């Protein structure tokens, strides 16, 4: 290769670099004179609804410009933006441990002076409170839409065979046995993806343990061994009615199997419905609350906040942000979201319930709902994998091993938190 050629190549390389540098100049274009409000939503699947909402807001507001971003891997993006101290004004995230952690890191602003917080259904307002590691004064999240989990069932199959929706645990097992005796698979679990192990676990736990179990353990008042035995036993009991070797099949397989009528029921939440319907758009699905107890009156629906809005402490435009939140909380706006995504509105009022959640209506209207237990589990503890490990353990002491490990691992993974909580207790 000649020197000239090399020089050319080097020049080309530098040219490219310069060109790249030049291209990166494009940042946010400030719309003239308007206050810019940025909202990052963690639900990329809801991008269409969010775009609609964004357009509507900007049409009706001359002084504020709203940008809603629904990126993929939003949690990673949010965390990296927090590191860069490049905060959006509002974040739309789930009511789970991430929220608790962010709140604990003092990233959010108290929004108790926002009028619409009074319109939140009490059950969801309470759930939000329980997500606080240390009880906080004020309100830090505006719950928007919730999802619910229990048992989805194939309505046509149920009607065809004359099966009744069960209301107690024995009715449920009896139903499973009946379905099995007719040569049909009662349940499909898809436990290869460990997180699916948490679906029935959570749905059973809400009926069998107090909603604040994790907080009580942190305060040193109880142990998981005392609370989770029955949940573990019943989760294990489901295996008998499921596909053989459920650890071979994933969430996707389970959705496909249920959609194709290979099983009569699927212990999962309403969030799985779009995936199921993508395989079989004509399937007729309904649901029921997991009948965890022997008395219907003790059963509780597993429902948690799927999307809520939090205001970042660093925001410079509190008034504009509040205006956005008020707009988001208008019935019409909520309906745009629900039409696209389904789910349960967290606002008091008359919102349409998806047909697939009809079977849970009574619980939703009465507010007989409790949050997912796993919203309180630290994700690094991998409780889902622990449950899978327990279910795979065929020894006689499996439950004891599992519960003992749950307690000891909990203490290990939550050491700093437990210290903080107990410190707080001493002071109050």
């Amino acid at each position, binding site marked *: 290769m000649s020197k000239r050629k090399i020089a050319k190549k080097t020049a080309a390389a530098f040219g490219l670099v310069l060109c790249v540098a030049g291209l990166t100049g494009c940042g946010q274009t400030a719309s003239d004179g308007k206050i810019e409000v940025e909202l990052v939503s963690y639900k990329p699947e809801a991008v269409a609804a969010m775009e609609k909402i964004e357009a509507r807001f900007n049409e009706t507001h001359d002084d504020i410009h709203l940008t809603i971003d629904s990126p993929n891997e939003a*949690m*990673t993006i949010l*965390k990296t933006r*927090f*590191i860069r101290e490049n905060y959006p004004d509002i974040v739309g995230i789930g009511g789970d441990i991430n929220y608790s*952690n*962010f709140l*604990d*890191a*003092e*990233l959010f602003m108290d929004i108790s002076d926002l009028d619409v917080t009074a319109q939140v259904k009490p059950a969801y307002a309470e759930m939000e409170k329980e997500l606080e590691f240390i009880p906080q004064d004020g309100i830090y999240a505006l719950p928007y839409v919730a999802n619910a989990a229990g048992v989805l069932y194939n309505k046509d199959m149920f009607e065809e065979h004359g099966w009744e929706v069960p209301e107690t645990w024995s009715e449920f097992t009896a139903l499973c046995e009946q379905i099995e005796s007719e040569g049909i698979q009662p349940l499909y679990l898809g436990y*290869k*993806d*460990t997180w699916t192990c948490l679906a029935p676990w959570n749905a059973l736990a809400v009926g069998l343990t107090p909603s604040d179990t994790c907080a009580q353990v942190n305060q040193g008042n109880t142990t998981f061994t005392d609370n989770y035995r029955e949940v573990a036993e019943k989760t294990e009991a489901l295996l008998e009615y499921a596909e053989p*070797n459920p*650890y*071979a*099949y*994933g969430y996707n*397989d389970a959705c496909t199997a249920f959609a194709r009528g290979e099983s009569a029921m699927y212990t999962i939440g309403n969030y799985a419905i779009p995936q199921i319907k993508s395989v079989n758009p004509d399937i007729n699905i309904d649901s029921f609350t997991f009948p965890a107890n022997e008395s219907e009156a003790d059963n509780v629906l597993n429902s948690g906040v799927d999307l809520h809005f939090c205001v970042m402490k660093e925001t410079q435009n509190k008034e504009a942000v509040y205006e956005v939140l008020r707009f988001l909380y208008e019935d019409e706006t909520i309906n745009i979201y629900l039409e696209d995504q389904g789910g349960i509105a967290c606002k008091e009022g008359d919102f349409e319930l998806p047909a697939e959640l009809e079977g849970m209506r009574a619980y939703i209207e009465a507010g007989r709902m409790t949050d997912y237990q796993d919203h309180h589990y*630290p*994700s*690094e*503890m*991998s409780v889902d*994998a*622990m449950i*899978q*490990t327990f279910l*795979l*353990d065929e020894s006689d002491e499996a439950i004891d091993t599992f519960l003992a490990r749950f307690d000891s691992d909990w203490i*290990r*993974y939550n050491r*700093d938190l437990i210290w903080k909580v107990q410190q707080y207790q001493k002071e109050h």
Partner: protein
Amino acid sequence: MKSKMTTREKTFWAITIPVVLLFFTFNTLPMLKGFMYSFTNYRGYGDYDYVGFRNYKDLFTDLRVGKSYLFTFKYALVGTVLVNILSLIMALGLNNRIRFKSALRGIYFVPNILGGLVIGYIFSFFFTYIVPAVGNALNISWIQNSILASEKYAWIGVLIVGVWQAVATNTIIYISGLQTVPEDVYEASNLDGATKWQEFWKVTLPLVVPFLTINLVLSTKNLLMVFDQIMSLTKGGPAQSTESISYLIYRNGMDGGQFGFQSANAVIFFFVIVGITVAQLTIMNKKEEQL
């Protein structure tokens, strides 16, 4: 001559220093910061406290971390041997007098390009539905169930995919290594009447030893740092039997709130791999000199 060598050395330094600076800024500096975090309970955001050596103490008593080391080493050891044998054979084959040479090379390169989602879906499907179907047809009991669902065999499933992908990379390096063996060396050995087998051991292998070294180091490192295959195939399951070290560091450090603790894990892991590599390099350098 002597003054010439010093200007030569000056040139070397003039090249090396800026490169080292660049490397320091974007590799060593952030690593030192990560090292600092390993003494904290940092979650990745918010404030944190220094906790001294607690993270390091915890590491050595954490069963899950211990299990991940066992899995990772078993995987890397078997994998390195398989990858290097297979890719050397592949490179020799693809460098031989064959037809459709570039087409074949292109085809064998494909496993390298396929991303996580494709690999995960296809091989999960393969192990879940196709292999058991074959097992049933031929009555081979241990593959009648998905091996990815078996605590005992799941690592083999991950290994098969890992090796399948790694062979492609290492073959490329061996092929370019074989290019440095001049044709006339073969001609000479042919004249001497050496068999193919002798030719390989006496002529080819000694000349590709530097590449064997590189491939050993690279494949060991890549296999020790196994992450993509775990993410797409098993997510550490079943029963946490395939959690690799990198998987734990990433999952619990980034997704979970254990950034401080997993930084400590990463620091230890770094020294472990460096140790292994130095050992490999020392042994191989001796071999290179012998040959």
